[in-house]
């Protein structure tokens, strides 16, 4: 594989950049693989990469119905954080933060990781207490957390509404200074390029139409491009999890819902951090191009549509304007939607299944993008070793029947209520 470097950039400039190698090949599916990963999104690509890198398993195929990176890894708001209270979530995400910090070097691909800090705003004394508790839990797990009072928040984001008569005054906030953003497409492409270079077959435009299961063991998959034998199969299909589960006669603690995001026209730099509104569900950051990147609630009903309706967008942006009134002056540039695999306790599932050789990675709800490296790393471990790693031991499928839920927000099973 051609290394991306300043020298290669200069060298290729002499031939008008016409002679770069393809970043990944377009192979035809082989008859058999050791591992087949279904889903060429961030998590699937990362899983294949870590299977090859950490476990020397390179007879691997990624099967993608559309094109790689066309789903949620290209549709999110690029936020990376580990500001969780529960140990399972905190330790898992903080492990991921470490992978994020090394990712550009590791992949020889600039993922533009920008640890600009995230601030969760608090709008009452009770919320400040809750944030103090969460911050303490984070620090006990080695995650950086700073509790900010109103004046400190005002110092950092003076453009927020600090006037006296607002409905939800800003009391302070909880900041994770090491959180940030990254260029989401680059993450998918970086993992794809490295996985491909180590021998992984990335097979696009290939839909899985069935599974070959006999005597409780997986033998392969049936696709629109023929049957493929596989010793092990990993499901990494986010919003399409329920569709594939139905083909396996499995019913999962997952519902598929629609989540929208949007960006404004580009403006001069105004916001250095990621900021979330604490009296509803709204988050905003500013992209390198200057666009305000915003998102919030689910549309609120089961959907596979990948495009949203306006009432939710209006509701979300009303919260945004309550927090930062200047947003009302901006023109909307783009809105889009993606389909989320909403689990019944808001936490993901990375586990084996009752079918031997079939592994499950789903339930990422609002937080799939930031989990990409840690999810790929732990899922690769789970598949390669046929046992869960301690980092994803809590993300078991049977926790719903045993009662070991990880309900970070305490929302319960109405997945569409945020």
């Amino acid at each position, binding site marked *: 594989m051609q290394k991306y470097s300043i020298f290669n950039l200069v060298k290729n400039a002499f031939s008008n950049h016409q002679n770069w190698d393809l970043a990944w090949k377009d192979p035809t599916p082989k008859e058999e693989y050791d591992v087949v990963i279904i889903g060429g999104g961030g998590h699937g690509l990362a899983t294949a990469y870590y299977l090859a890198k950490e476990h020397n398993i390179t007879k691997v195929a990624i099967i993608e119905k559309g094109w790689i990176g066309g789903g949620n890894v290209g549709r999110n708001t690029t936020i990376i954080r580990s500001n969780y209270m529960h140990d399972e979530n905190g330790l898992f995400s903080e492990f991921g933060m470490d992978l994020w910090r090394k990712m550009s070097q590791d992949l020889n691909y600039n993922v533009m990781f920008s640890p600009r800090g995230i601030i969760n705003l608090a709008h009452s004394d009770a919320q400040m207490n809750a944030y103090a508790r969460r911050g303490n839990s984070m620090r006990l797990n080695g995650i950086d957390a700073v509790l900010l009072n109103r004046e400190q928040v005002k110092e950092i984001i003076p453009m927020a509404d600090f006037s006296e008569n607002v409905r939800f005054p800003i009391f302070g906030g909880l900041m994770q200074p090491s959180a940030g953003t990254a260029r989401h497409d680059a993450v998918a492409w970086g993992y794809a390029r490295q996985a491909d270079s180590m021998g992984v077959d990335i097979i696009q435009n290939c839909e899985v139409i069935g599974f070959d299961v006999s005597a409780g063991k997986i033998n392969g998959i049936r696709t629109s491009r023929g049957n493929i034998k596989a010793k092990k199969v990993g499901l990494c299909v986010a919003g399409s999890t*329920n569709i594939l589960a139905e083909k396996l006669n499995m019913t999962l*603690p*997952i519902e598929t819902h629609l989540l929208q995001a949007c960006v404004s026209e580009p403006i001069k730099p105004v916001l250095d951090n990621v900021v979330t509104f604490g009296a509803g569900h709204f988050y905003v950051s500013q992209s390198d191009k200057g666009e305000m990147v915003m998102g919030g609630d689910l549309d609120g009903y089961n959907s596979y549509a990948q495009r949203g309706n306006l*009432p939710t967008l209006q509701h979300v942006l009303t919260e945004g304007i309550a927090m930062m009134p200047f947003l009302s002056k901006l023109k909307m540039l783009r809105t889009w939607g993606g389909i989320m695999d909403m689990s019944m306790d808001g936490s993901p599932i990375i586990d084996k299944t009752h079918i031997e050789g079939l592994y499950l990675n789903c339930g990422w709800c609002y937080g799939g993008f930031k989990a990409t490296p840690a999810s790929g790393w732990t899922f690769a471990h789970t598949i390669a070793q046929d046992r869960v790693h301690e980092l994803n031991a809590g993300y078991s499928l049977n926790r719903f029947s045993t009662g070991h839920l990880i309900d970070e927000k305490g929302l319960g*099973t109405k997945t569409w209520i945020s």
Partner: protein
Amino acid sequence: MLYIKCPHCGMRPQTEFSYGGDASVKRPELNKDVSDQEWDDFVYNRKSLRGKHLELWQHISGCRQWIKVERDTATHEIFRTFKADEEVA
């Protein structure tokens, strides 16, 4: 904007309604033994179908009645609506 035909009030915008999830989920009967698996299926496990999906909505800013809506989860097309206690053929 979705428009939902409330069987009590007629066609209304979605903003008058609140969602209630899969209407095909049945609570286990309490006067017999209920296995853990049955409770699991009632509380957590969902088919979340792509295509026709029967679901509960409440006309929260209208008559406040719960209703059933048959809606396509891929296109958002609404086919039929029913009163909560109406049997769906």
